[in-house]
Every structure is written in C-alpha cells, then in structure tokens.
C-alpha cells in the first residue's frame, strides 16, 4: 500500500481536518482582506517582536564578535583593519564629494536669485544592522533601533555613501528597512547634472533604475543620480548611484536608465535613519512662501 496516496488515512484524523480547514480559511481571509489581516498580524506580532529581538540581538552580537575576532587575530589582522578603515574613509569621502557637488550645483542655480536659502542639516539616528530578512523575494535588513528611539515607518535610511533604503516596519526595539535594490521600493530621484526627475526603483537583478525621465533628457552614462527630496523621508541630494545604461521606453514617451547603486547592500553594517529630512526652521514662513502678494 505504501507509495500510493491513501485518502482514508489522510482525512481520517479530526485534528487533520480541523488543521486544514483553519489553514485554508485563514489563507483565504489573508488574501481577501489584506488590510484587516495585516492589522491583526501587527497587533499580535508587535509585542512578540520585542521578545524575539532578544535572541536575535544576542546572536548578532555573538556573530559580530566572532567575525571581528577572526578578522583581527587570525586572518591578516593588520591588513584587514587597515582595509576596513580605508573603505570607511572612501565611503565618507564619496559622500562628502557628492554633497559638495550638489551644493555647487545648487549654488550655481541660486546665485542669480536674491533669496538664497541655506540647506539645513538633517536629523538622523545611527543604527546597526543585526540581521537580514530571510527571503530572496524581499531584500530587507533588521536594524537595532525601533519606535523607542523615534524610528517610524517610511523614514529614509542612508549611509555616508548614499541611500540604503526605507523603514517599512517597526517594533519597540527594532525596525525593518527595505533596501533600494528591492523592486518593491520606489523613491523620488533626479539626474544631478540635468535635474531631470523620475522614480527610482530596484530590479530583481540587484540593480536600480530610474523611470519616467523626459524623452528629451540628455542623461548619459556616468551621470550621478541623487534624491530629489520632493517626497519620502530623504533630504535632497543624497547619492543613489551612477548611470550605466540609458534606454528608450517602447512607446517612446519616457526614458529609463539603469543605475549601479552607491551602497552595496551586502556590506551594510551601520546606517543612519533620517528622522527628519529637513529641520523645521528650514521651511519658509507660510505668508512668504505660499500666499501670493495682493494687488
């Protein structure tokens, strides 16, 4: 009898029937009522997440300690430390170069205007990557800062090198960031040289593309793409990546370019969560900015 499916044995158990029924009903409810089921899951899961975060943080600390120990004492201790410092310096310098370039462009544009407004610095919270989302379908990282530290959903995540992702879920002590290379993340970006704006979205290949650029855009390979700062939790001018391929859309209405992201998601260790993309005093007073002068 073995080797053949036996429906009598399979359906004979009451526990089995109940299990299957519960699973099917729950899945149908999950598919048909996504918002309600998300709310339920969130309500049950949030308190549990803080508890589960304890072993995750412990394991991450152990993993980090062991890795650092290995790197420092066994495998080429001097070189690895120097290499790491140099990489960090390069990342910081890249970010600095990009920031200065952005400021230079802005200065050029605004020099002709009398009302020059200084770009105010953003407020950020430093966080450490303690784990990764265990799935090939959603590229996310687990951060060790959560709602208790002021982190909220939709906040931007950056590094000195550029944009890393966006917070999509939070609990008391942890948060989850979706990375820029994920196809489900879309942020507003622009070509730094031409100022053409578009939507930046990840691809399954681990690259990033910027869509809906104007067809007459003079974008070319090697151009730098930065955040436009119009929407989302990012300040203006944070580096996203460099253009490697320019292509026309099939209908000829838009241009799409492929970008190599500035931040390598596999090597993320520490990040900055943008709590406030611009300081409140940077916003111009309402009567000056929005209300047109009367006759």
């Amino acid at each position, binding site marked *: 009898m*073995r080797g053949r499916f036996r429906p009598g*044995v399979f359906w004979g158990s009451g526990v089995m029937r109940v*299990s299957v029924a519960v699973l099917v009903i729950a899945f149908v409810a999950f598919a048909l009522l996504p918002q309600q089921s*998300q709310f339920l899951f969130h309500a049950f899961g949030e308190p549990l997440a803080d508890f*589960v975060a304890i*072993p995750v943080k412990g394991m991450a600390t152990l993993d980090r300690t062991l890795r650092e120990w290995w790197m420092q004492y066994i495998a080429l201790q001097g070189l690895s430390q120097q290499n790491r410092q140099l990489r960090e310096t390069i990342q910081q310098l890249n970010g600095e170069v990009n920031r200065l370039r952005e400021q230079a462009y802005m200065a050029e544009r605004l020099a002709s205007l009398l009302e020059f407004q200084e770009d105010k610095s953003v407020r950020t919270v430093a966080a450490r990557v303690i784990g990764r989302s265990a*799935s090939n379908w959603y*590229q996310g990282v687990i951060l060790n800062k959560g709602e208790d530290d002021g982190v909220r959903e939709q906040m931007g995540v950056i590094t000195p090198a550029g944009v890393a992702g966006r917070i999509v879920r939070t609990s008391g002590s942890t948060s989850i*960031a979706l990375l820029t290379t994920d196809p489900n993340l879309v942020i507003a970006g622009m070509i730094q040289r031409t100022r053409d704006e578009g939507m930046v979205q990840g691809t399954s290949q681990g690259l990033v593309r910027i869509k809906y650029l104007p067809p007459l855009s003079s974008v070319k390979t090697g151009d730098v793409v930065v955040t436009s700062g119009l929407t989302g939790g990012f300040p203006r001018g944070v580096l996203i990546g460099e253009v490697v391929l320019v292509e026309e859309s099939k209908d000829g209405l838009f241009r799409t370019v492929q970008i190599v992201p500035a931040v390598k998601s596999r090597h993320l260790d520490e990040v900055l969560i943008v709590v406030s993309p611009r300081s409140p005093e940077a916003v111009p007073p309402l009567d000056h900015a929005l209300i047109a002068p009367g006759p």
Partner: protein
Amino acid sequence: MKISAYTLLTLSLFSFQATVLSSFNPFGIQPDFCLVIACLIGFRTGPVHGLIVGFGLGFLQDLFSAGPFGLHTFTKAGVGFLAGVFARNLSNREPHAVFVPVMACSGLSAMVFLLWSRMGMGLGEMLYGFSYILLPQAVLDGLVAIMANWVSVRWWSKRRIHEGRPVMNRREVRQ
C-alpha cells in the same frame, strides 16, 4: 515538553538564520533553512506537527520580514503540512529521498512569493524571478534538506542505539 522544544527550536533556528546564516548565499541565492526544517519536521512527525512548526517559524520570519505580514506564516505552515502528507506516502526512507518533496514544497512556496511580490511589474521581472530565484532556491533547499536529513537520521539512529531502542520507530516498523 514538546511545546517547549518546538518553541526553543523555532526561536534559535530563526535567530541563527537571520544573523549567522544570512551571509551564506551561494550564487546570490539564500537557502530557506526555516522551510527546510518545517518540511523535515513534517516528514518525521506528521502533517500536524509540520504545520505547527511551520506556522511558528513563518510567523517569526514575518515579524522581521520586509514583505507583507502573513506570507511566511501561511507558506511555511502549508509546506510543513504538505511534507507530512508526502511522508505518509513515501516508500523510500533514504536521506536523499527528501530532495524532490522539499524541492516541490520550496517551489510552491516561492511561487506564492513570486506572484505576491512581482505581480504588476511586468513579464520580464516575473520570468527573471522564476528562472533566477525560484528554481535555484528550490534546488538549493532540496540539497540543504538532504544534508540536514542525513545528519538528523544519523543522530536519530545513534541516539536510539545508545538508548538500547530499535532504530526504527513503531510507525516505521508497522509500515
């Protein structure tokens, strides 16, 4: 006792996968150890246990996933259950016999994720996801399952011999 063991197993396995094993991604594909373990529990102890462990592991994965809440929970519970059903109808008890069922379970689970996460992104993204993520992951999960099953079978047999009990349990003897 069993509940405590399963809770401990799910917590430690999830923590281990999210941290230590997250850098283990041959060819850019990360094997899903939680799925493999849910399947193996289903194989060893039956569909209901597979479902419960799969549900627990999936729920933990959902808590720390960047995707929508519930996908891991239902897919892991489903594959744990399916693996238990497969095992009842599997004549070959060798460690490598789990390769095809685990591969099928992984493929089914990944298909749900593919449809959910890439729907509306165009045929190119769907085909890329199918060819370069779904298929390699299914094969990788199957290979990991063979190794994990081989280790568990050896450990199981040694423990039983050490305790002076027969290597096969009552259900296996009956079959």
